[in-house]
């Protein structure tokens, strides 16, 4: 069974670039963009999967970090395009339009925000945790709407997509490869964390908190670390997403977005390495195919999601590869 999951993972890993290359070859840049969208959403969900899948921390507020990344990309792009400094006080800092810098800043800011949120939220558990993460995300959402400097509810449009050293990011295939490369990197990091002592402790804390505490590991610190790393990854995905859409707005911070990230994970398979990838492929294709068919597509999307959660436990990967082997 484990081998079958590897096979499926490999197939999923190859499917995306195959789709992108085929579309590129046929002169259909839109489908390259669609594949990029899948890769970026998968990346965001992979970040959440670390907290949710491995740590059992059902964060209903990850849109906050997704949006923070998006706003970093938007703010840097705006200042770089207008050639105005980011800050003038206490020291003047110029903006850059280089993606690697923006990603680092996004991850850093997300970590700074996730730390206090995590410290307060992780004192709670279960439904309380779900709701308090939602509440923090709502707080940031309302802040973004009423903060006039960067567009408020109108959001920020990005005139020129940010750059990457040596690569023309305006070419859809190049941009896909950047997003896909980051996705693979994060999935690799995910396996390293999962198989590390830290990952073992995190998963053990999910299954039996008392036992973990009794052998001298403090679950709070482990969980806080997982929560912060998870937020950082999702923020990088947010920066990519804003650059893909050439736009960032408060809707990236909305509770619907948090819900969609959770949906991606469950559709694909909670805690599975390639769950977010499978989930993102399914979700984007549903949205794309149903939207063209009927005005009432959201009704059918709801029915499909309901069907999955009721009858297909373990998501797509669970369906194809069977149950998770703990060990």
């Amino acid at each position: 069974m484990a081998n079958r999951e590897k096979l499926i993972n490999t197939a999923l890993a190859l499917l995306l670039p195959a789709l992108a290359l085929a579309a590129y070859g046929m002169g259909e840049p839109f489908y390259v963009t669609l594949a990029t969208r899948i890769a970026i959403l998968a990346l965001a969900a992979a970040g959440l999967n670390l907290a949710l899948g491995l740590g059992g921390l059902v964060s209903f507020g990850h849109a906050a970090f997704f949006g923070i990344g998006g706003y970093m990309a938007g703010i840097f792009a705006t200042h770089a395009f207008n050639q105005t400094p980011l800050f003038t006080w206490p020291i003047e800092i110029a903006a850059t339009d280089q993606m690697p810098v923006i990603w680092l800043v996004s991850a850093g800011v997300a970590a700074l925000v996730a730390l206090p949120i995590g410290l307060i939220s992780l004192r709670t558990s279960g439904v309380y945790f779900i709701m308090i993460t939602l509440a923090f995300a709502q707080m940031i959402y309302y802040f973004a709407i009423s903060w006039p400097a960067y567009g408020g509810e109108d959001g920020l449009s990005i005139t020129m997509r940010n750059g990457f050293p040596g690569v023309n990011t305006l070419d859809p295939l190049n941009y896909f490869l950047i997003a896909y490369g980051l996705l693979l990197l994060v999935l690799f990091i995910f396996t390293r964390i999962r198989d590390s002592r830290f990952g073992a402790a995190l998963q053990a804390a999910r299954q039996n908190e008392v036992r973990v505490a009794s052998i001298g590991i403090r679950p709070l610190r482990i969980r806080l670390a997982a929560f912060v790393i998870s937020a950082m990854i999702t923020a990088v995905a947010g920066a990519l997403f804003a650059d893909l859409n050439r736009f960032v707005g408060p809707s990236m911070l909305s509770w619907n977005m948090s819900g969609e990230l959770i949906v991606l994970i469950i559709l694909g398979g909670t805690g599975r390495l390639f769950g977010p990838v499978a989930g993102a492929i399914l979700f984007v294709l549903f949205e794309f195919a149903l939207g063209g068919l009927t005005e009432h597509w959201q009704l059918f999307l709801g029915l499909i999601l309901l069907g999955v959660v009721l009858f297909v436990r373990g998501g797509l990967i669970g369906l194809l590869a069977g149950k998770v082997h703990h060990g």
Partner: protein
Amino acid sequence: MSSALLIEQVLNGLQFGVMLFLMAAGLTLIFGVMGVINLAHGSLYMVGAFACAAVAAYTGSFWLGLVASLAAAAAAGAIVEVTVIRRLYSRDHLDQVLATFALILIFSEGTRWVFGSFPLYLDIPPVLQGAVSLPGGAQYQLYRLAIIAAGLVVAIGLYLLISRTRLGMRIRAGESDREMIGALGVDIASLNTIVFALGAALAGLAGALVGALQSVQVGMGEPVLILAFVVIVIGGIGSIKGALIGAILVGVVDTMGRFLLPQLLTLFMEPSQAATAGAAIASMLIYIVMAFILAVRPKGLFAVNA
């Protein structure tokens, strides 16, 4: 600032809080008895408002509409419990979040399919139209006073139901030990359906009452849903008393924040800026309050089986 204005604002906060209580009571009951987190509770609120508006438009009577809202929301709740929620009791919260998230999409788009895309009209019944004079010279809308009264009646009714009746005894037993009451021969399945329908009916009632004050439209339940969650988390999940106190706290804090913060800020900045900055902070205020309360008491103010 006159005392009349202050009294009026406190009443506004109270009325908002009472409305939140109707939503939160159902949510907290459902969580307390079944351990289920129901994101679709806002959809039941919407169902109540639409049922009331449709029946009131057809019959010309708001009161028949109100009865219809209770019936429609309770029926929708019972159907949802039997077809979907029942399968989720043994699952973790994650599956419940996803399933009820899917239900929101289904309810919203289904309602739009049935009732069309334009908002519906629902008016206040003639008896409750207009404003009354309060001591101190303030004018206050009669219908809002009626909502406060209705909410307090529901609160007392719920208290009596839970503390004095057989059903209430089973609910309390269900909250403390689900397996045990099954072993004692109580029909858990029907108890769950009844509690779910009761919670749904309360949400439908809130939707109908508020529908006469605002616009009856698709998506109206979602902002209220999030506030109701804030309420039950502050109050302590599963506690009706917590829901009541949490709801009034949130209602009053939100109303007073919107009213006082911009005025307070005019001491430091020019009026236009103070108005926008004050509004910005006011919109985040209840979440800040919630974070504070949970930082001190992670299980809320009146935690059940803490």
